[in-house]
């Protein structure tokens, strides 16, 4: 399974009578952006939760880089190479941009329990953080508190933290949400550039971004993947048009 960095096999999750994920099988190949779209309530968040390790599936497995990670928690999956950005930014807001990035590098390298040596004085960690910040264009803001960043900049910082982890795969939950046209365009360009480093499973509502970025698209409706294919295929798919895009589009 070397050609699949991340794979879900028949993931099923029920909440009482509601089936939030119905035998979902998806995969992520090297160098691609695989977009996951679906109307509200389709079960995207539940699926992301299962892939990230926050929610335990009732059935099925998650494979990361040829390894069954179904039984691993979130932190262990992160160490195994799965990076994630959140729909609502999760950052240490009182800390500086640099500190947030260094935290990512620290989680990746280990040694987080050292109590005596300075963490920002650690050249290797700092360089790793600065390279990632530079990549997203936040290096000039390194000394700024994360709380003072704009919404769009916080999104970029989340991406930078993910980069410090040298991930094998990235999970991005609606990175475009709440961004203006400019911000959305800038992030689109950045993600197109990043997919060569690590393939991205992208959950996104912004259809312009999805159609511009995605190599493949999967459509989730009522917990079920009803179609997977290239952008052109998905656009042409009549089931998808009926279920999601609406006939008007």
């Amino acid at each position, binding site marked *: 399974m070397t050609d699949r960095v991340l794979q879900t096999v028949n993931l099923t999750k029920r909440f009482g009578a509601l089936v939030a994920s119905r035998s979902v099988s998806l995969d992520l190949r090297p160098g691609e952006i695989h977009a996951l779209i679906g109307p509200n309530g389709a079960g995207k968040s539940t699926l992301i939760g299962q892939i*990230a390790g926050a929610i335990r599936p009732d059935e099925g497995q998650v494979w990361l880089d040829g390894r069954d990670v179904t039984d691993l*928690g*979130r*932190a*262990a999956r*992160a*160490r195994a190479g799965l*990076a*994630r950005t*959140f729909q609502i930014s*999760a*950052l*240490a*807001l*009182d*800390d*500086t941009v*640099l*500190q*947030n990035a*260094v*935290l*990512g590098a*620290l*989680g*990746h390298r280990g*040694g*987080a*329990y*050292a*109590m*005596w*040596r*300075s*963490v*920002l004085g*650690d050249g290797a960690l700092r360089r790793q953080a600065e390279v990632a910040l530079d990549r997203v264009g936040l290096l000039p803001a390194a*000394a700024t*508190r994360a709380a003072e960043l704009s919404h769009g900049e916080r999104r970029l910082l989340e991406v930078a*933290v993910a980069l*410090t*982890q040298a991930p094998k795969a990235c999970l991005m939950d609606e990175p475009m949400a709440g961004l203006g046209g400019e911000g959305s365009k800038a992030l689109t360009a950045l993600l197109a550039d990043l997919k060569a480093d690590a393939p991205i499973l992208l959950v996104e509502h912004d259809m312009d971004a999805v159609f511009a970025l995605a190599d493949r698209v999967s459509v989730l409706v009522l917990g079920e993947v009803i179609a997977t294919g290239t952008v052109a295929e998905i656009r042409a798919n009549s089931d998808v048009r009926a279920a999601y895009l609406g006939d008007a589009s």
Partner: protein
Amino acid sequence: MSERMFNSALLLALIAWPLWAWAVDEPFMITLATKAVILGLAALGLNIALGLGGLVSLGHAAFFGIGGYAMGILASHAQSFQPLMQSPVVIEGTKSMPVIWGVALVTAALAALAIGALSLRTTGVYFIMITLAFAQMLYYFTISWGAYGGEDGLSIYVRNGFPGLNTLDPIQFYALCLALLLAALLFAHRLSRAPFGLALNAARQSPDRVETVGLTPYRLRLVAFVVSGAITGLAGALYADLNRFVSPAMFSWQLSGELIVLIILGGTARLFGPVVGAILFVGLEHLLGGVFDHWLAALGFILLGVVLFARGGVIGALCGRARAHD
């Protein structure tokens, strides 16, 4: 005023005040200063969990008391020449401070590991309540522990010794306590800028973030709780030595509350916050306690004022908000 200047002035005062008292032969003043330093050390321990980790423990008296009883038990066996244990190995009591400190640190750390491992599965109000419950358990246990004085506590007739010093001399005992406080301040300072400090601080602000980079908030908090409990335990041993007396009151929930009050007064998550709080507390107790019985009511009003108008405590009011450091 910059926080650095304020801290330097405070350190200077911590040296000058007792020296002055010593010069004009006011041993009681030195005892007051010693009490402030020891309470400051206890609260500094708590501040690692509370300020950096966001863990509001209302049970840190447990570790203070364990440190106190570590001293009381070891010293009482030494003064009665009865070993603590006969088999399989003979364990004698001791009057040596370094040994007592070591025992206090280790037993408080182990207790913090056990209490933390259970308590940290909860958060918020439940965490406050469960830490309180553990401390109360120990409180009632010591009340009924007849072998070591029960409700009456244990008196130690002569202060424990430290090689090369006369610990009965107030200024020398003070110097010892101050040295430990300074060591703890240095440690807390380094810790807050070390990888562990960064990770723990981030776990307080955003557990999701910490988990996403591959760290486990629970484990970070547990380690912080153990370090925190050990330092408060050491302070407990010193406090017992200051009074040459230990009693279940060291485990009381009032004491846990006072430690939190000290931190809030001085400034949460400020390096010197607990020390400032302890000096204020001891100072007010001395100045107002002599004038009227209900001096704690005055403290209550001050606390109210700090919480409403100066969220950063005294240090916050004087030095402005904390800056993220580079």
